[in-house]
């Protein structure tokens, strides 16, 4: 039987990182996610698995340490919250441009600016639409429980190395801070240098006589070369969209309305569905687990069946744009959500559903 523990979402990230054999963590303190590095420093994995844990001088340094480690074919990660992730955008576009695998966790708080330390989902655009400069994508996983905070660390690394692309775990202050029971995985060994050199022959592990030098870079001075590289990236993203969409549906089969929600908002909306169904409203929920790639195809299919969709997010309305694009104006799509650090109640969601879609 696997080990069960009651822990915070942030602590679960740290535990899972050590257990799945992460090589390096580089971070900078910021609320509401500082428990991740604090937990790592407390658990001292450098004495058990050999994992490197380093507090950097800034989020800029953290993400660039991640670049350095990823370039060596190592499994490296950083975590932060919204203002810190804004500072990391330069590093993220370089990582994407150099096709480096890594995992970044954003425990989102309210913005803009220094904003609030309370939870929010207002970094959706920054995460799935780019964030930094240039044509690139971050594969994005959105956990809705402490268990998923733990499980997605390894899943994210698997995706990162499968596609040689940064993966973001887009969490929020609710999931990071709340405590739940977690089933922890067994400890897996870290990769050996031999394994890395065999499986990631692009990594800068030192030029052996029998191979050409490895270069990790994102600069292509020739426009034609840069364009060809961008076509290659786009082909990779099409493969990601084809193969990696994840979502969960709750009571959708007989639904007349669908709530689209992810992360902690999806947890709240589960209760909203119960309340609505008690009132006789046939409503289901589609929870995107991957925000990029977005479950657009499934939403398109559900649009044939339902009268309307409500995108419920702790933002002024960001994911709602992707829901609208997915359903191609076939049905009404509305947004509801408290934001700026406020969290909607299940009842508020039901009221919004009634006012914006049913009553209208």
């Amino acid at each position: 039987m696997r080990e069960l523990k009651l822990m915070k979402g942030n602590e679960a990230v740290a535990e899972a990182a050590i257990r799945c054999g992460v090589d390096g963590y580089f971070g900078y303190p910021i609320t509401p996610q500082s428990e991740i590095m604090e937990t790592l420093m407390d658990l001292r994995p450098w004495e058990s698995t050999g994992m490197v844990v380093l507090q950097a001088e800034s989020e800029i340094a953290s993400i660039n340490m991640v670049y350095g480690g990823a370039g060596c074919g190592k499994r490296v990660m950083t975590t932060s919250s919204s203002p810190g992730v804004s500072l990391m955008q330069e590093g993220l576009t370089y990582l994407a441009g150099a096709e480096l695998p890594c995992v970044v966790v954003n425990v989102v708080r309210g913005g803009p600016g220094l904003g609030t330390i309370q939870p929010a989902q207002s970094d959706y655009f920054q995460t799935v639409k780019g964030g930094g400069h240039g044509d690139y994508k971050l594969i994005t996983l959105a956990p809705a429980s402490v268990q998923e905070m733990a499980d997605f660390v390894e899943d994210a690394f698997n995706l990162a190395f499968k596609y040689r692309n940064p993966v973001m775990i887009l969490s929020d202050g609710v999931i990071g801070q709340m405590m739940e029971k977690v089933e922890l995985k067994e400890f897996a060994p870290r990769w050996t240098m031999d394994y890395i050199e065999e499986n990631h022959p692009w990594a800068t592990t030192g030029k052996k006589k029998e191979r050409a030098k490895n270069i990790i870079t994102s600069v292509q001075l020739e426009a034609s070369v840069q364009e060809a590289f961008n076509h290659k990236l786009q082909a990779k993203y099409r493969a990601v969209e084809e193969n990696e969409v994840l979502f969960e549906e709750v009571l959708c089969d007989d639904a007349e309305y669908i709530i689209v929600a992810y992360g902690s908002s999806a947890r709240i909306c589960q209760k909203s569905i119960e309340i609505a169904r008690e009132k006789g409203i046939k409503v289901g929920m589609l929870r995107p687990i991957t925000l990029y790639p977005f479950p657009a195809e499934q939403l398109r299919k559900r649009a044939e069946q339902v009268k309307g969709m409500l995108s419920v997010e702790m933002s002024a309305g960001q994911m709602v744009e992707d829901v609208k694009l997915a359903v191609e104006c076939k049905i009404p799509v509305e947004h509801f959500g408290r934001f700026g650090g406020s969290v909607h109640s299940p009842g508020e969601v039901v009221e919004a559903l009634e006012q914006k879609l049913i009553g209208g």
Partner: protein
Amino acid sequence: MSDINTIIKPENLTYKRTEVLSDNDLSYCPGCGHGTVHKLIAEVIEEMDIQDTTIGIAPVGCSVLAYNYLEIDWQQAAHGRAPALATAVKRLMPEKNVFSYQGDGDLAAIGTAETIHACNRGENIVMIFINNGIYGMTGGQMAPTTLPGMPASTCPAGRDVSHDGEPIKISEILAQLPGTCYVTRQSVHTAANVRKTKKALRKAFENQKANKGTSLVEVVSNCNSGWKMTPVKSNEWMEENMFPYYPLGDIKNK
């Protein structure tokens, strides 16, 4: 006439291009010190037999394509971030030899925080710092190290210290930090200075092998295009103007 053909024989060979240098022609302007320093790094790597264990971190600037010129594994960093990359590479693979190669804008302006903190942590790496007092790649703008009164495209009348501040002596600052074990300032404008710079680079890499902390080798260098002089004239100008402000020699050696 001459007997040179009797001298040009394998047994008389005294100086040749190291094979750690690639066959690519350098993208640098004629007479640029970057090429000389690249060659010295390559020679030190060859002499220490560490080609298969050395990872270079290239910056943004003229030497952004440094990876084309040395036959070792390389990572190219975002502007100023090379010390952060080098930190992770070395910590994750402590048995490898890691160096960053950075210009003045990279190391002493946009990357000041990464530079100071890598040195302060005593990262066991070599940092090679080319100080030519100007932004070469972008066309000769004022650098953090541009001399007082020295013209650049963003201070065409010369650096006005009342407006822009004095040029930063970053090596002296870094020498104050306990994490640095070796901070030296050298040049490559004469054969004797090239030999000294090579010794300094060798020492820096030996320090890394001995886990002594951060070694910083500053090379005061020319930018004849940016300075708008011939290569030979730029070396003379450097001696007369740069060295009084940036005196050569060891700043720290422990």
